[in-house]
């Protein structure tokens, strides 16, 4: 304490000088508008610089937080943009026709998973129950056959590919209407086998094979492929090798066909069977 007092006493001249100068300047600044303006200007500038610097520092310190925030923002934006958003475009291309009852409804969908090298191949589509897909709907690509919807979740659906030994399609020869059962041969993704075509049917290599429309799944006339070769089997039927027109290796956009009258047909058929 004593030494502090001594020290203060020793520098009393300097202290007094500083005190009086500070007092003078406070008088100067408070009583002269020009000096006041200059001073305020200066301090404002100084404060501005200071705040800018500290803000920079603070920003640097909060970079991690900021990054987190930006990442969240990015995710939010990614969720909004089209490519990650399942567009709810008009699902059914319906025609409100008062004379003709519409039978089939078309829905576009994209193949998001596909396989061709198994015995039981399935596809996955990017649309599901929310977009109106149901099991037993037909799937076509550019007018040629792809498969049948099997399972439907909220936003996705699985499709039994034509390249699946379990799937049998009712098909017919376009030019004369003889029909039979079409099934994949289980080996080549470009070839299927059409059976039960009677021997008296006049067929040639290159004839067009289409769906028969007898099942309630496919509309009539969906292209399947063309006759590659045929031979007699078991005496009374041809076994026809069909070159499939669908390129299962490059499937992307497909149409899903819903049969509006499917329930009605099924109910009627059920009833008829029961009556027997």
């Amino acid at each position: 304490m004593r030494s502090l007092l001594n020290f203060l006493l020793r520098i009393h001249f300097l202290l007094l000088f500083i005190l009086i100068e500070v007092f003078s300047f406070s008088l100067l600044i408070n009583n002269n508008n020009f000096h006041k303006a200059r001073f305020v200007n200066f301090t404002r500038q100084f404060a501005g610089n200071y705040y800018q610097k500290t803000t920079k520092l603070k920003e640097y310190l909060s970079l991690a937080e900021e990054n987190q925030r930006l990442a969240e923002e990015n995710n939010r934006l990614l969720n909004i943009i089209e490519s990650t958003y399942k567009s709810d475009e008009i699902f059914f291309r319906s025609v409100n026709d008062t004379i003709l009852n519409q039978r089939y409804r078309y829905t576009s969908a994209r193949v998001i998973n596909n396989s061709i090298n198994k015995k039981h191949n399935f596809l996955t589509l990017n649309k599901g129950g929310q977009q109106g897909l149901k099991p037993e709907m037909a799937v076509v690509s550019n007018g040629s056959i792809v498969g049948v919807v099997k399972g439907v979740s909220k936003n996705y659906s699985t499709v039994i590919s034509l390249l699946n030994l379990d799937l049998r399609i009712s098909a017919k020869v376009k030019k004369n209407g003889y029909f039979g059962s079409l099934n994949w041969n289980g080996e080549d993704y470009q070839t299927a086998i059409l059976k039960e075509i009677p021997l008296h049917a006049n067929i040639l290599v290159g004839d067009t094979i289409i769906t028969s429309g007898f099942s309630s799944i496919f509309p009539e006339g969906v292209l399947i492929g063309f006759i590659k070769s045929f031979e007699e089997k078991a005496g009374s039927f041809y076994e026809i090798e069909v070159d499939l027109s669908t390129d299962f290796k490059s499937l992307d956009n497909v149409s899903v066909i819903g049969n509006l009258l499917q329930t009605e047909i099924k109910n009627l058929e059920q009833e008829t069977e029961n009556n027997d």
Partner: protein
Amino acid sequence: MIKSLPRYILSFIVLVFLQVFILNNIQFSGYINPYIYVLFILVLPFETPKWLLLIVAFALGLTIDLFSSTIGMHSSATVVMAFFRPYVLKIFAPRDGYESETLPQLRYYGASWFLRYSVFLILIHHFFLFYVEVFRFSNFFSTFARAILSSIFTIILVLISQYFYRKDSRL
């Protein structure tokens, strides 16, 4: 000291009047404005306590300020000058120091000593004053020129004043 106090007070008043009513109204070409009142600080006795020096300087500056409505400007400059006075005196001290019963005036220590001593302090005062007046360092050289020119005139006036003291005056 005490008996010379009335003379100091009189000198204070005379210098303030001279400064406020005559010199403040003379502004040669807008550049030159001599400040003779600093003479009062220059000629205070060697033994004046340092703290008193600062207070007197502040009082003198403030008085000038009050008359020229520049509160704080002259007081701050005069206090700076008073602060440096002891150090300047020490620098220019004769080899055997200042004799007692003498004052820092021309007639005791000669024109050469007095000139060096007063020029130094007047320059400090004027530079401080002029830069406080403009309160910025842009126009640095214009302010510099004004400070130099005014200092020259102040120095001339201070030197002239030294020949007005009576020979036998103890002031």
